[in-house]
C-alpha cells in the first residue's frame, strides 16, 4: 500500500515541477519585486509599500482601469446580445433553421486569426483617408467627410470593442448554444402549450436555465477582458494613443516593465490588476448567486 502511494507522487511530479517553476515561483518573485525598485539589473533595493502608494494615486493606472472596463463592457454587451440572439434563432422550434454546424464554425473563424493579423487588417480597413470603411460609408452617403477612427478617443475605443466583439461572439455563441441544447425541450413544449410567446419563453425559461453558462462566460470574459493588451498595443502606437484612450491596464504594465524598465513598479501594477480581477470575479459570482437564492425564496 505504502509503495503504491509513492508511485503516485512520482507520476504527478512532472506537473508539479513545471507548475512550481513556471507558475508559483514567478508569482512570488513578482510579489517580491513589487516591494523593490528593480530595474532589470541586479542591485534592487527594498522600498516598502512605495510602489503601491504610487499605484493608488497614479492617474494613468486609474485611467487605464476605466479604459479597460469601457472597452470590455461595450464588447461584452454586444457579444452576449449577439450570442443570445443567434442561440434564440437557432434553437427556435418553429423556425427550424438549418446549417447550425456551418454557422457555428463560420462565426468562430475570426477567433482563429492571429491578433497581429487582425490589428493589421483593421488598421488598413479603418485608415482615415484610404480605408475601405470610410470609402464605403462615404459612397452610401452616411458621412460626408472621412472619420479618423483611430484618432478620436471615443471612436478608437469603440473600434477596439467592435473588433473584439467580432472576434469573440462566435465563441460565446457556441457555449450558449451548448447550454440551450442542454435544456430539455419539455420546458419549451410545456410553455408553448401554456400559451407563452417567444419573448416569455426566452425570459422565463431559457435565461434562468442558462444562468450557470452565462456566469461562466461572464467570468471568463471578464478575466480575459481585464487583461486586454494585444489589440490596443498593436492597433496604434503602443502607448495607448489617441490621448491615452487605448491605454489598458496590461498595456500599462507592459510599457512600465519592458519599455521603461520599471520592473518593480510594474510588478505592483500586476498585483493591483490581480486584486481588481479578484474583486470583480467575486462581485459577479456573488451577484449571480444571491439572485438565484432570492428567486428560490420567492418561489418557495
Amino acid at each position, binding site marked *: 500500500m505504502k509503495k503504491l502511494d509513492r508511485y503516485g507522487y512520482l507520476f504527478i511530479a512532472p506537473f508539479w515541477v513545471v507548475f512550481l517553476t513556471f507558475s508559483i515561483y514567478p508569482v512570488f518573485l513578482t510579489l517580491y519585486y513589487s516591494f523593490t525598485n528593480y530595474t*532589470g*539589473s*541586479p542591485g534592487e533595493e527594498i522600498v516598502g509599500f512605495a510602489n503601491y502608494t504610487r499605484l493608488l494615486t*497614479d492617474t*494613468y493606472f486609474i485611467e487605464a482601469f476605466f479604459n479597460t472596463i469601457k472597452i470590455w463592457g461595450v464588447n461584452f454587451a454586444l457579444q452576449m446580445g449577439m450570442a443570445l440572439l443567434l442561440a434564440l434563432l437557432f434553437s427556435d422550434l418553429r423556425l427550424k433553421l438549418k446549417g447550425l454546424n456551418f454557422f457555428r464554425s463560420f462565426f468562430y473563424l475570426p477567433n482563429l486569426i492571429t491578433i497581429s493579423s487582425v490589428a493589421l487588417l483593421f*488598421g*488598413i480597413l479603418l*485608415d*482615415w*483617408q*484610404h480605408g475601405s470603411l470610410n470609402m464605403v460609408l462615404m459612397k452610401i452617403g452616411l458621412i*460626408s*467627410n*472621412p472619420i*479618423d477612427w483611430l*484618432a478620436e478617443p471615443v471612436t478608437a475605443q469603440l473600434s477596439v470593442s467592435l473588433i473584439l466583439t467580432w472576434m469573440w461572439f462566435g465563441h460565446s455563441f457556441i457555449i450558449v448554444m451548448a447550454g440551450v441544447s442542454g435544456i430539455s425541450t419539455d420546458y419549451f413544449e410545456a410553455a408553448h402549450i401554456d400559451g407563452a410567446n417567444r419573448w416569455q419563453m426566452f425570459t422565463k425559461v431559457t435565461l434562468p436555465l442558462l444562468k450557470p453558462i452565462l456566469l461562466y462566460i461572464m467570468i471568463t470574459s471578464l478575466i480575459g477582458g481585464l487583461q486586454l493588451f494585444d489589440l490596443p498595443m498593436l492597433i496604434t*502606437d*503602443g*502607448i495607448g*494613443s*489617441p*490621448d491615452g484612450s487605448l491605454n489598458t491596464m496590461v498595456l500599462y504594465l507592459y*510599457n*512600465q516593465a*519592458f*519599455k*521603461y*524598465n*520599471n520592473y518593480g513598479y510594474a510588478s505592483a501594477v500586476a498585483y493591483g490588476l490581480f486584486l481588481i480581477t479578484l474583486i470583480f470575479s467575486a462581485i459577479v459570482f456573488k451577484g449571480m448567486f444571491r439572485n438565484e437564492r432570492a428567486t428560490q425564496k420567492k418561489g418557495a
Partner: protein
Amino acid sequence: MRKLVSLLTIGALSVGVLSACSDGGSEGSSSEGSKDDVLKIWSFTDELKEPIKTFEERNGVKVELTIVPTADYATKLKPALESGVGAPDVFTGEIAFLKQWIDAGYWENLSEEPYNAEEVSGDIVPYVFDLGKDKDGNVRALSWQTTPGGIYYKRSIAKEALGTDDPAEVGEMMSSMDGLFEVGEKLKDKGYKLFPDEGSIRWFAQGDDPQAWVNEENELVLTEGKQNYFDYAKELRENNLTALAPEWSPSWFEGMDKPIKVKEGGKETETEVFSYVLPTWGLHAVLKENAKDTAGDWAVTSGPSPYFWGGTWVGIYKDSKHKEEAYDFIKLMTQDEEFLTEWAKETGDVLAFNPVTEKIKTDFSDEFLGGQNNYEFFLGEAESIKPGIVTKYDQQLDTLYGAAVNSYVEGKKSKDDAIKEFKKQVKNAYPDIVVD
C-alpha cells in the same frame, strides 16, 4: 503481441543507450567539447550572414548565429546577458538600445589591451565612433555603418514645380526651414504635397544645434528648438502641405509609387507626395521595396539640417570566453579593407570606415536614384553630424513627444497642455529624470 511490444521496447532502449555512449565518446575525444569552440553571435537581422561566412572561411572558427526578431531582441537578450547562461560572445545593438546596454556594462571595454580600439578612432566617422563610447570615454561597441539621413524626392515633380531636378539645387532651396516651406507652397500650387505627414519634419525642427533629451544632471531638456517641432508641424497641417499619410501607414507606402487620395475641405483630390525623409537604409529597405514604378525617378538631397536615424553597433560580451576570436570578428566587420570593400559594393551599405570609403566612394551610382552617387552624398552628411546627443531614453521619449505633437496638430490639445502632458508622462515613465 506482448512479446513484440517488449522486444520493440528493449530495442528502443538499447539504441538509446548505445547512442548515449557514442555521444559521450565523441565529446570526450574532442577535449574541450565541441560546443565551447563555437563563437556565438546574436543579432536581430540576417545582415551578418555574409561576414560570418567570410570569417569562418578565413579564421577556421565555427560561428553560431542566433537571429531574434527586433521586437523580442532586447527582452530575450537581457536575461542571457544578466545571468551569463547561454549568453552570446558577440552581439549587436541597435541605436535604440545602444546607450542602455553600454551603461549596463554588457560590452567589453575595447579601449583596453589587447583591443586598443582607440587606434582606429581616426579611421571611423566621428559620430559613429563616439556613440560607441561609455560615460568615461571607453569604447564599448563599434559599427561598420553610418546612417545619416536626407530627403528623397521625385525628380519629375521637382522639374515641374521647382524648375530643376538637380540634387544640389533642390537641396539649396530646402536648406532652411523657410526655404522648405516655400518649396512646399510651390508644390502645393501644382497639386503636390511636400511630405507624406507632419512627423517628417521632426529631424529638422530642432535646427542646427540639437540637444540631448536629458542632460548630465539627469534633467529633461526641452529647448525652444525642440518645441519648434509643434509649430512647424502645425504649420504643415494648416497650410495643407502634407498628404495626411502617417509614417509606416498603408497610405504612406502607397504614396511612394502612385498618386494618393486626400480629402481636403470636403473635397476629394488626388495628389502625389514629393518627398520622403529617410536615412541611408531607407533607400534599400523602404523605397526600393515599395516604389517599383517610380524607380529611377528619385534623387536624394539634404534638408535644413543634418541628422541620422538608426544604426547598428557590435561589441563583445564582457564575460565571453572567446574574446580573442570575438574581436577578430569585430575587426573584420568594422576595419577589414578587403572584406568591407566587397561588402559595400554588394549591399550599398554606407560604411563608417574611411580608408575604404575614400577609395570607393567616387564610383558609386544608383540606378534607382537616376544614377546619382548617394554614397558620396551620405558620407558628406555624416561628417556634419554632431555626436553626443543620444541618450538611453531617446526611443521612448521620441514616441511620447511625437504623440504630444500629434495631439496638438489634430487640435485636441493646446501646445501648453500637450507639453504639460508630455512632461507628466516622462515623469511617470522615468521617475529618475528631473522634470521641472
